[in-house]
């Protein structure tokens, strides 16, 4: 792995977000949506508690909608414009290109997340939140964003159409979010699916691992899960891109 190549791809992709107004629209939409859900729906102030759980619990749903928008062009645009042929005939491996692109998209989402820091700062000014729990919440949110980004990178590799990439990323992320919900688990169990299988599938839920972190508990297994999803999705994206790059 040549890290100079990863860095070059990362820098190009990251800068490309800001080459058009799309990045700014994305950041504003992210903040408006998070703000509305936290203050308008979850009634953050009305609770009169310096606890950020109502803020973090909306992150998966915001990522569900916005991360696919940030990742849908990563490979689809390369294929549509023919630049994939230019890129992959340079002395660079597909893995280096893939990791550079993933890190750029993840960092971009990271900037959006960093812009929400006034929320815990305000909570700290008004009360005394548990900063350990706040840190865990942000840490979990960063990992969740990484998993959603990797799903988006994979979805983008499947088609030269950005719209298809968006829809597939949305569908996969949504499925991986809801499989951990009790009503879904109960419905699946009622179909006669053996409970070990139901439990195994439910344990793959993006939501289930995030919930614990929102409450201030960082388990190594949860961290391992998110990195597992990232590695699996990037490996799948590599296989797909390699086999479909010329199509």
């Amino acid at each position, binding site marked *: 792995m040549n890290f*100079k*190549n990863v*860095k*070059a*791809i990362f*820098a*190009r992709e990251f*800068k*490309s977000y800001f*080459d*058009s107004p799309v990045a700014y629209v994305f950041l504003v939409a992210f903040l408006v949506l998070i703000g509305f859900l936290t203050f308008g729906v979850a009634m953050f102030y009305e609770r009169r508690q310096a606890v950020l759980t109502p803020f973090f619990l909306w992150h998966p749903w915001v990522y569900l909608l916005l991360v696919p928008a940030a990742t849908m062009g990563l490979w689809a645009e390369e294929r549509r*414009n*023919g*630049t994939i*042929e*230019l890129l*992959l*005939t*340079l*002395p*660079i*491996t597909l893995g280096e290109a893939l990791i550079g692109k993933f890190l750029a998209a993840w960092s971009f989402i990271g900037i959006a997340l960093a812009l929400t820091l006034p929320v815990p700062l305000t909570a700290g000014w008004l009360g005394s939140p548990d900063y350990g729990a706040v840190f865990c919440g942000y840490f979990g949110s960063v990992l969740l964003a990484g998993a959603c980004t990797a799903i988006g990178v994979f979805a983008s590799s499947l088609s030269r159409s950005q719209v298809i990439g968006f829809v597939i990323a949305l569908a996969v992320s949504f499925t991986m979010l809801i499989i951990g919900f009790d009503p879904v688990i109960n419905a699946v169990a009622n179909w006669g699916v053996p409970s070990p299988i139901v439990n195994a599938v439910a344990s793959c839920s993006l939501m289930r691992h995030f919930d614990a972190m929102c409450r201030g508990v960082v388990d190594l297994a949860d961290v391992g899960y998110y990195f597992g999803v990232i590695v699996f999705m990037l490996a799948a994206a590599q296989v797909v891109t390699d086999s479909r*790059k*010329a199509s």
Partner: protein
Amino acid sequence: MSETLLEVKGLKKNFGDFQAVKGIDLTVAAGDVLGFLGPNGAGKSTTMRMITGFIPATEGDAFICGKSITTDPIAAKRCLGYLPESAPSYRAMRVKDFLRFVAQIRGFSGAALEERVAATIKEAMLTAVENQTIETLSKGYRQRTCFAQAILHDPKILIMDEPTDGLDPNQKDVVRKWINNMAAKGKAIIISTHILEEVNAVCTRAIIIADGEKKDEGKIVREDGKPDSAVFQGTHETGKIDEVFRKLTKKEER
């Protein structure tokens, strides 16, 4: 005898049951400009893509400066400059930033990178537009920008897929002069084309393919270097390139 820089051995490509390339062999030496000719759908671009490592060959291999594109692709690609068909580039980037990006991947850094990018911009005559975004450029300038990325690292081998496709006569003339300059510098050049006047203007040798097979291979001989006098002297056929081309490829259009 010039040094052989590119050697292609038994290159084949299957797409499912369809065999697009049926075993192509070729060599290109320093200073050679090889015209890779064939009608649309003959397998030219597929062959170029296998030689440059973009798609894997089903069978066979290409050796670039002695490095196998199959087993040592990174070393092989370092020796190669490639201008893909339609000259793709990142259109939202400025010309200079695009070349900086390619230079980074080509292993340049710091002052050497800036120096190399500045020299390439000058060589490709892009100075007037170096700070413009690529999407605002004319087709001719976009072609030059993609050409610039191909020559940035001063490669020994240049591969160009339809380098003058869609350009006006003046722009074509500029590209042909570049090709002749590069050949004079001792580079091995392959040009994939179906524009036969290109072969008369710049090529020293030509290979004619049709239906994925090599039909003939030979020298292009000119009297006093005049393109109008160019004659193809192949293994099977000799004559004006357009006549030989029609004779060898029309059989495939029954």
